């Protein structure tokens, strides 16, 4: 079926234009309307999506800067489709939550920043021209810089500078790598990059440049130190979008640039990456346990969970002879990306709901919340268990698949990866116990106000999504399977 409207461009530019309009003329319900329209567009994109091929679909191609061979090329495959859905869904929830969580005076600019970011993030996932990708990748940082700096916590300026300088520093290596690949391919199309066969020596250099660029975003140990600060100081919406989407950009960049373009480099250095991932899972999990600040704890748990994503991607290189297992690992990594987006977002929403009432994030100032807010406690329980990876929730699927694949590579990898089952349970449930259960020690807790309607909507939608993926993972695997299989073939075609 032919669609005459440039659907992908509309998904990108409609929110950006709407956000700009909102900055000039405040309109209270516009962000929600735009979010609903965007969701509708994404669903229609999904409905017209052909899951039986790995090829890019709904391609749009226009000359952008002919003199430089830059093109405005967009396209969507199963991976980017799901990530865009996640982006639009999470921004929708942020806009709903903003109704009660944000001061009325700031509401407008706040929501405008988020819907502009939504457009830019969709641009990252749709871009098939490396320079266009880079432009969206960087442009997205500007609203985030302002969001943290304007509406964040007491240390917000420090946090936002750390965040933006870290990411600028990472992306400079990406820019040089893109320029180098563009020079080799005589084109900046990502699909042309995929056809390129780069020499081994160059692949090794490019591997480290790109690894650094994307590892900062993921973030991988040891370049993760910006994340606890940024997540902690950001306003609730900022933490949600950072955790749910921004971190995925790094992993997505690895999927689009590193694995298919530099398979030899990746294979050569897969060991170090796997070790870094295991450090993230194990060591950062231990770090999370001792956190006193709820947001910091969730931030560290994010790093540990993203360790599974990088592990799932690079484990493929350790089992060159068993392609189906490698596909399982890769699919597990992608599902973990999506699931982590939902679960960490949900946890940040939970903390945000407490924070607007009590203005503290310290665990020991809470206790006994369940006595006052039983519904909240129930939702929080579900999200905490999803974070632990309880079967039946989305958290289980990705981790299980990655551990399964790593067992095939080496039982030791699986052993260290599986420590998360213990560590994740320790830090999440211990925090949950201290905040929600027990006697009320702080008087403020006893006067907590019940959940507002919009908060209930947000929690319900998230709970449905998390359970749906948990019991029916095929929903995600269906569009993912072809692109993931193709990607593994590109990766392992190195023998």
């Amino acid at each position, binding site marked *: 079926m032919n669609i005459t409207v440039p659907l992908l461009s509309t998904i990108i530019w409609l929110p950006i234009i709407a956000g700009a309009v909102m900055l000039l003329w405040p309109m209270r319900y516009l962000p929600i309307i735009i979010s609903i329209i965007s969701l509708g567009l994404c669903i229609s994109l999904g409905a017209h999506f052909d899951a039986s091929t790995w090829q890019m679909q709904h391609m749009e191609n226009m000359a952008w*800067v002919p003199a430089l061979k830059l093109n405005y090329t967009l396209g969507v495959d199963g991976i980017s489709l799901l990530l865009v859905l996640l982006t639009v869904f999470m921004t929708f929830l942020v806009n709903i939550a903003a109704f009660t969580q944000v001061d009325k005076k700031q509401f407008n600019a706040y929501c405008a920043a988020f819907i502009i970011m939504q457009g830019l993030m969709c641009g990252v996932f749709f871009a098939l021209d490396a320079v266009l990708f880079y432009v969206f990748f*960087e442009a997205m940082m500007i609203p985030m810089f*302002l969001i943290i700096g304007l509406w964040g916590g007491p240390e917000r300026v420090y946090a936002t*500078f750390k965040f*933006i*300088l870290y990411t600028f*520093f990472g992306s400079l290596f990406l*820019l040089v790598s893109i320029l180098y690949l*563009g020079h080799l391919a005589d084109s900046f199309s990502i699909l042309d990059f995929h056809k390129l066969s780069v020499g081994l020596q160059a692949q090794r250099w490019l591997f480290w440049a790109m690894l650094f660029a994307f590892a900062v975003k993921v973030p991988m140990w040891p370049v993760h130190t910006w994340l606890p600060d940024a997540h902690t100081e950001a306003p609730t919406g900022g933490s949600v979008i950072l955790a749910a989407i921004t971190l995925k950009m790094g992993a997505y960049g690895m999927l689009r640039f590193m694995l298919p373009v530099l398979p030899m480099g990746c294979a050569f250095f897969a060991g170090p990456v796997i070790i870094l991932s295991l450090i993230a899972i194990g060591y950062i999990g231990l770090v999370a346990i001792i956190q006193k600040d709820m947001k910091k704890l969730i931030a560290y748990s994010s790093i540990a969970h993203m360790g599974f994503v990088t592990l799932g991607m690079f484990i493929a290189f350790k089992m060159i002879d068993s392609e189906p297992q490698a596909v399982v690992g890769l699919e597990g990594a992608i599902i973990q990306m999506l699931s982590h987006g939902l679960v960490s977002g949900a946890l940040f929403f939970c903390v945000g709901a407490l924070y607007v009432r009590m203005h503290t994030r310290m665990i020991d100032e809470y206790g006994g919340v369940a006595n006052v807010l039983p519904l909240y406690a129930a939702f929080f329980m579900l999200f905490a268990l999803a974070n632990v990876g309880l079967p039946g929730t989305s958290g289980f699927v990705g981790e299980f698949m990655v551990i399964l694949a790593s067992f095939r590579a080496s039982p030791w990898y699986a052993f260290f990866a599986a420590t998360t089952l213990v560590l994740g349970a320790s830090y999440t449930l211990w925090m949950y116990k201290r905040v929600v259960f027990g006697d009320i020690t702080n008087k403020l807790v006893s006067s907590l106000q019940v959940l507002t309607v919009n908060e209930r909507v947000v929690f319900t939608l998230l709970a449905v999504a998390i359970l749906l993926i948990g019991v029916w993972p095929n929903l995600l695997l269906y569009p993912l399977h072809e692109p993931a299989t193709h990607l593994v073939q590109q990766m392992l075609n190195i023998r």
Partner: protein
Amino acid sequence: MRIAELSLVYPEILVASAASIILLIGVYFKRGAYVLSLVTLLAAIIMTVAKLPTMSHTIFAGGFVVDRFANVMKLSLFVLLGLIFIYSKNYMTMRKFMNTEFFVLSLFSMLGMMILISSRNFLSMYLGLELLVLPLYALIVMVKDESKYAEAAIKYFVIGSMGAGILLYGISFVYGATGSFEFAEVMTAKTSPLTLQLGLLFVVAGIALEFAAVPFHMWLPDVYEGSPTAVTMLIGTLPKIAVFVITYRLLTEAFGNLDMQWMHLLLALGMLSIAIGNVLAIAQDNIKRMLAYSTIGHIGFILLGLFTAPSAGYIATVYYVLVYVFMVLASFGIIIAVSKQGFEAEYISDYSGLAKRKPWLAFMMLLVMLSLAGVPPLLGFYAKFLILQNVVTAGYPLLAIVALVFTVIGSFYYLRVIKAMYFEESSKELATVANGSLTTLAGLVLSVHSMLLLVLGLVPGVILSLCLNMLGG
């Protein structure tokens, strides 16, 4: 010389005679100079656009060249000087500074730039350079009541004269080696390479001094800080274009055979400028000094672009120069807009809470700062992109990384201005500072100017095709 040749220099004749006439009229009508100068520039724009040469003409016995490149660059001078006049009108009036001489001196300085841009031998080059700088010295000290203006002017004068001396010394070597002042004859002359190379060395040093490339950069921050903002705006923008064009002509037309020698000189100057400019800018609290160090960093990029130009072409550098000047002009326009009578918005702390006081001005400053930092999708990014592409294509990816590392370090001080505007509250004194000093027209023009940084950033091909067109594909 044929009379017909004169038709090629109509813009120069127009500017020279108009400046003289404005000087005369100014004796009787104090207010006329502003309008007349703008009319002159408009006439010059029309004249140049109407007769864009398709081929290169060399006139006045080889000393003066009129080609597409020169005329488009002159066109950019007219437009930018017009913007400077519009932005500074209220600023000057408030400081009792709005007199005929400001316009006349600026126009004469621009005439010097036009001659510089078109010069094709060392004599007209030297003439143009001197005509460029002499009015600037006078402009800095036009407000007599502040001693720092005099200090800046004297510093600029001494350094400028030294630069001219070094340049002349170099020219004398070149003349000694080749027996000619003509660029073309220098290129083809059979001569002792050592003498010519010494000449090249001094000429490049002289130019580096005009550009304020490290290690010849010391004067720039003092002059930027010590001049009235309207004059800083002039010093910081137009001369860069003119000096760049003459550098381009010298390197390609006079020293085209010595490219292996000058490439490495430019590499050293460029990388040092990028490093030192960006690092020292972090320490500045005065926004004009900060912009001076940022200029040094950007000059480094221009020199880096020239370094790769023999293999990768000059388009990227031309693009960079034009874009840079366009951006930095907007930043000075905003500094003027925030200043007012008796209050110079000189320190970064003067911008605290600007987003609350003047959201639109703050947003424009945000765009300008991000563009200067080279953050996509703003125009400044593509300028950096093109230069780095050349560097990588020429086979120096590590050099590109080093340059980018310093750019990231540099992005800190641009972000610092944004931090002051958006993340800090304004102090009580600042909150009482009334509206800035822009006329309605200037406000509108400045808004369009700043928005263009974003709009042209979305379609970066527009200026690029202009540059391609200029250098003939």
